[in-house]
């Protein structure tokens, strides 16, 4: 027998281990997408409850209450208010944490008011003994009118009990556990009389929250039950106080805490980690470690991948029948894909570190340490999260700016985040640094190349802060705001959570970039190996004529033919057309093509050059992309193309230029106007051009 799956919504405060519960229930059986029209992550998974029954589980964004203050939180309310939504849950599972039960229950009492069958999960039960906490489960179940699953996602206990409760969800009570309407009986009685068929708490949410509500005309309620903003706020405050009274009374009889055991370890650790000197030393130590790791130690798997792809290319050439199709594969596809696969180790490491910093709870301490300093530049301490996660990718980073309460601080953060060195710049930096910076070590262990990379990260960060300073000066916006940051308890990151996160993000990077690169490399290959003019088609004859009076080896002859062909191909014409604009920066037309195609996405740079150079050379031997670039010389002067001046100029250009269509799209979405992404594009790319120009002219 198979039946429709039971629809389950996981709801809870941030930092209660909701994602761990989700991972325990679904394993790798999950998919991440977006809610339609908005860029809030939607996580769904399937859980097998028994032989015949499955549950479809949605992990809703973390929220402190049903009083939403961000679009992530709106998602929760909109789903729970809309019975017609295909995801509307049969049963709500509210996840709480044993140490913060009092506060977590606030959300629980609100969900209960919606009269949806609700299960209460008390997570991190393994910490109870340590913290001297005792719970009287039967009493709590009676007072809260629910069933409780005491689980520990770390120790993997209690999950089966939760599955059992989900299976029998029809037996759950749907009665609210307190009557919030007593905060203003007259008002609520009138409301009840006007809309007898609607749930009172639902009406209240529609009045107070800025959410879409399908079944009811919002204006209809509004006009007859308008209250001033201040009055509504006061009622909301009263409601919160009322709920806490109920929770306090309930916990008085259902929870015992042995105060002697309840030492505040978190506070003790925090006195060191947020200390005015040690705090910063530790923070910068961690950053140093990450960068050494990224550049130095990830080179081992990267070299391996690089050579493997070079081997693939020559294998394909040797074993496939010669012809157009083989050329497409060996010169277009394989180098193009290799150009992106090589960066998987670095990108995975980067996501790993960021995921560990966030999971462990350390990120909030950095927010606390940096707030006052960041405010001097018009940013918030919370801007540090986008700025750090921007080192992975600017897109999720810009979305994470949502929890900055002040609009001006948030806007500035969104505008400057793309300056931070994202993982798409990493491939470009890595290959350029290895070409122009010698492989030396200072003090025997600090790699010079690693330090250069770190300097580039600092440059990006510095530029972000500097432009924030300018924006803060010239943007005239006044916003009243506040700043509330929760300091979650420290947790050793769970391998499964971090692992799934790294896997998902890396996969998204490779497939997302991979698609563009694949398409571009095919187009580039075609444009590079075909031409219109007679010159292109008669290359052999022309070169033979040029070499009439010289003796020349077959190999040198072939090379000359190929480079002549490339110059007269479609891509050659295009490159030559833009050359005047990029010549002063020290780039030849091939680099120019790579730079222009990078405006789709930066990481395309390496793949593009790889494709162009593969078409250009005809050697059967395996050569890596790096070797090809190092061997490239100027046809007239015989000088190396990738010399120090050109390298630095390119590094600066990539550090500052806005070359990411996806980022521009997300900025448009988050700021709701084309004005800001256009300003970003013009300012960043203009600035990049000027600095690259100055650098090349000074260094050449």
């Amino acid at each position, binding site marked *: 027998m198979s039946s429709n799956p039971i629809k389950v919504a996981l709801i809870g405060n941030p930092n209660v281990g909701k994602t761990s519960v989700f991972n325990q229930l679904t394993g790798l059986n999950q998919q991440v997408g977006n809610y339609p029209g908005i860029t809030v992550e939607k996580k769904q998974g399937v859980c097998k409850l028994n032989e015949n029954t499955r549950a479809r589980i949605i992990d809703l964004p973390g929220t402190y209450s049903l009083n939403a*203050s961000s679009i992530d939180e709106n998602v929760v309310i909109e789903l729970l208010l809309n019975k017609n939504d295909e995801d509307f849950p049969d049963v709500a599972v509210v996840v709480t944490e044993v140490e913060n039960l*009092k506060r977590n229950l606030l959300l629980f009492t609100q969900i209960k008011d919606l009269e949806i069958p609700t299960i209460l999960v008390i997570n991190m039960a393994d910490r109870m003994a340590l913290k001297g906490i005792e719970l009287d489960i039967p009493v709590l179940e009676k007072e809260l009118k629910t069933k409780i699953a005491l689980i520990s996602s770390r120790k993997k206990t209690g999950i089966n009990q939760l599955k059992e409760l989900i299976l029998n969800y029809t037996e759950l009570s749907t009665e609210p556990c307190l009557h919030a309407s007593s905060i203003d009986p007259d008002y609520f009685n009138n409301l009840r009389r006007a809309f007898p068929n609607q749930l009172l708490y639902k009406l209240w949410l529609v009045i107070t929250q800025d959410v879409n509500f399908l079944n009811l005309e919002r204006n209809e309620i509004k006009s007859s039950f308008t209250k001033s903003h201040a009055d509504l706020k006061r009622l909301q405050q009263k409601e919160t106080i009322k709920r806490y009274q109920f929770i306090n009374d309930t916990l008085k009889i259902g929870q015992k805490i042995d105060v002697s055991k309840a030492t*505040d370890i978190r*506070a003790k650790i925090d*006195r060191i980690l947020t200390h005015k000197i040690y705090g910063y030393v530790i923070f910068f130590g961690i950053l140093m470690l990450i960068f050494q790791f990224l550049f130095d130690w990830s080179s081992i798997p990267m070299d391996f991948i690089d050579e493997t792809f070079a081997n693939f290319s020559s294998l394909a050439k040797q074993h496939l029948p010669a012809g157009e199709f083989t050329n497409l594969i060996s010169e277009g596809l394989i180098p193009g894909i290799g150009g992106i696969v090589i960066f998987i180790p670095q990108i995975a490491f980067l996501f790993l570190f960021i995921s560990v910093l966030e999971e462990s709870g350390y990120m909030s301490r950095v927010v606390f340490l940096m707030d006052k300093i960041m405010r001097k530049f018009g940013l918030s301490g919370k801007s540090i999260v986008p700025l750090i996660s921007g080192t992975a990718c600017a897109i999720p980073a810009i979305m994470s700016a949502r929890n900055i309460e002040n609009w001006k601080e948030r806007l500035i953060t969104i505008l400057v985040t793309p300056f931070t060195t994202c993982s798409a710049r990493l491939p470009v930096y890595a290959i350029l640094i290895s070409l122009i910076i010698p492989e030396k070590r200072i003090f025997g262990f600090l790699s010079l190349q690693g330090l250069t990379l770190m300097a580039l990260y600092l440059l990006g960060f510095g530029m972000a802060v500097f432009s924030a300073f300018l924006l803060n000066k010239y943007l005239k916006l006044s916003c009243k705001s*506040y700043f*509330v*940051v929760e300091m979650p308890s420290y947790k050793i990151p769970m391998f499964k959570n971090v692992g799934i996160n790294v896997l998902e993000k890396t996969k998204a990077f490779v497939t997302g970039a991979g698609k563009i690169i694949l398409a571009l490399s095919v187009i580039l290959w075609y444009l590079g190996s075909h031409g219109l003019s007679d010159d292109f088609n008669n290359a052999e004859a022309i070169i033979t004529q040029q070499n009439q009076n010289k003796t020349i080896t077959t190999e040198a002859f072939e090379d000359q033919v190929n480079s002549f062909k490339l110059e007269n191909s479609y891509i050659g014409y295009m490159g030559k057309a833009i050359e005047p604009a990029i010549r002063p920066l020290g780039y030849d037309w091939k680099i120019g093509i790579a730079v222009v195609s990078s405006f789709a996405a930066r990481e395309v740079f390496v793949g593009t050059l790889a494709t162009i150079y593969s078409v250009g050379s005809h050697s059967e031997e395996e050569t890596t992309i790096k070797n090809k670039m190092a061997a490239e010389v100027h046809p007239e002067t015989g000088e190396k193309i990738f010399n120090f001046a050109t390298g630095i100029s390119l590094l600066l250009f990539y550090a500052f230029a806005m070359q990411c269509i996806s980022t521009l799209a997300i900025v448009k979405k988050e700021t709701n106007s084309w004005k800001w992404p256009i300003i970003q594009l013009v300012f960043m790319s203009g600035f990049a051009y000027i600095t690259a120009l100055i650098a090349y002219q000074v260094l050449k």
Partner: protein
Amino acid sequence: MEICSSELKIGEVATITSVNLDEIPLKLLEMGCLPGNSITLIQIAPLGDPLYFNVNDSHVAIRIETAREITVTKI
């Protein structure tokens, strides 16, 4: 004696006597920043702002102008 929570010293425990509801964000109330609950100053950030409190077992950092709107008595 009533003082502002911003005047507490590190490690001092106090009880909240009143909060200025016009200036305090709802989110902070929802974390348990309500009259009658206990409040402890855990850490002051370098440069004197923000302040890091334990309010009602919620560990939370707020800026000094918000902390001034919370009145407390020392225990």
